[in-house]
């Protein structure tokens, strides 16, 4: 695992440090979008969902080619609040994302979606930890990776369920689409469970494009190259489909090169 930790010292970053806070007050419903554009910067993002609030935060990494970024996200979700966090690693060369989240009250829920859209020589790592320390909380952690060219990606997920955390529901999945024989992906989904009265699962799948899907598209006159492009776009579109704000979702799809047929 050690080799996948790209950065250990923020002194290596010459860009202006960024500190961002997103919060939803009690009972509020909020949406926030953060585009990460500053090359060579450390981003510290704090997210707080107050009791009975609903908060959605989309973080889109879009730094210049050849640059690096370190994104550290701390999440706290209070009783009966729901957080939907979507983290997209896209531009630049080296990117390290660390997400530490914790539940502070019963009924708290975290949905964490990540997309690593890795190509060329990019190195992307994402470490996500979800801590369930109290009863009746739930989480769903899903990280998707499209691995092209000579890219290298790693996912390290930890779901920790404490002794008193009865009736926790926690799910974790890592899905990797391999698009190059040279690309490397490492996947470490982990569960640490100290309570028997919980529902949990974790898994990881790594595959190439599905040949029967390719054949189906080809049988409709679409060339193999175009068909592969459509299938990759489909994968990326699915990965960001959880963004509830349509304008934001469409902007990100556009930046990811996803073309949509308009139907109105």
């Amino acid at each position, binding site marked *: 695992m050690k080799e996948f930790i790209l950065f250990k010292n923020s002194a290596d970053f010459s860009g202006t440090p960024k500190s961002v806070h997103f919060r939803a007050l009690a009972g509020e419903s909020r949406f926030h979008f953060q585009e990460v554009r500053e090359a060579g910067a450390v981003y510290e993002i704090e997210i707080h969902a107050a009791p009975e609030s609903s908060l959605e935060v989309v973080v889109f990494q879009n730094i210049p080619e050849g640059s690096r970024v370190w994104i550290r996200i701390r999440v706290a979700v209070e009783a009966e609040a729901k957080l939907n966090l979507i983290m997209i690693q896209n531009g630049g060369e080296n990117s390290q994302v660390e997400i530490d989240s914790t539940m502070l009250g019963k009924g708290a829920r975290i949905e964490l979606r990540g997309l690593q859209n890795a190509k060329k020589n990019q190195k992307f790592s994402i470490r996500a930890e979800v801590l369930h320390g109290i009863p009746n909380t739930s989480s769903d952690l899903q990280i998707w990776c499209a691995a092209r060219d000579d890219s290298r990606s790693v996912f390290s997920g930890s779901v920790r369920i404490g002794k008193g955390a009865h009736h926790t529901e926690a799910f974790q999945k890592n899905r990797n689409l391999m698009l190059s024989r040279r690309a490397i992906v490492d996947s470490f989904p982990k569960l640490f469970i100290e309570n028997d009265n919980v529902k949990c699962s974790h898994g990881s799948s790594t595959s190439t494009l599905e040949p029967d*899907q390719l054949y*189906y598209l080809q049988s*409709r006159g679409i060339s193999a190259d175009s068909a592969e492009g459509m*299938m990759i776009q489909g994968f990326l579109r699915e990965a960001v489909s959880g963004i509830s704000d349509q304008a934001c979702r469409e902007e990100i799809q556009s930046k990811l090169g996803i073309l949509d047929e308009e139907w109105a």
Partner: protein
Amino acid sequence: MSHALFEIQDLHVAVEGKKVLNGVSLRVNRGEVHAIMGRNGTGKTTLAYTLMGHPRYEVLSGKIILDGEELTALRPEERAKKRLFLAFQYPVAIPGVSVASFLRASLKSVRGAEVQPAQFRALIREELKGLGIPESFMTRSLNEGFSGGEKKRLETLQLRLFKPKMAVLDETDSGLDIDALRIVSENLQDYRNSDRGMLVITHYQRMLNYIKPDVVHVFGSGRILESGGPELAIKLEEQGYEWVQGA
């Protein structure tokens, strides 16, 4: 003598080293509908996939000819552009690819020319209406979460949209309730004309009540065992395959 619209000449095919088709020969003239009936596991779907160029199916010998042009060595997309169409028994789901995007890309490829958005929508809407498909399907992922009947309706829509010279229907009637069977069959029958051909693979007579075949073939052991008129399908429905030698 003018050439047949579609011809299969002594086709031998293997799948992962195992021989499945053992010399299939067939001629479909313009305007004709042929039905292929046979027990499960006799190679009917292998024939359908092979005709459409599935890479897993290895043609050992024989030819596939459409309108005088040999297709045997062509890729699936090239066959589609020559106006051969396969309606799949189990169309795959492709998450994240919307039905509208897929149809637009396919139509452009098959026609070899861009289709203007307004024209595209008008074409699609007409077919949706005829097949009783809600317009909301256009923004859904291709075949994802579709019922068996919805998938078959979408296959039928594609056939009507792409206007192939020759259509191979692989058990298009399976998974359809009575109403869906009627709607799909009527749309297929409506598509039929004196220039086009169809090869209908089916287990049952019920679809053939709507799409009256000119010729019925009994398939077994990877080849055609018996051929006859529409009465052959009725006989099979009544008596099964026991009487057919080799079936």
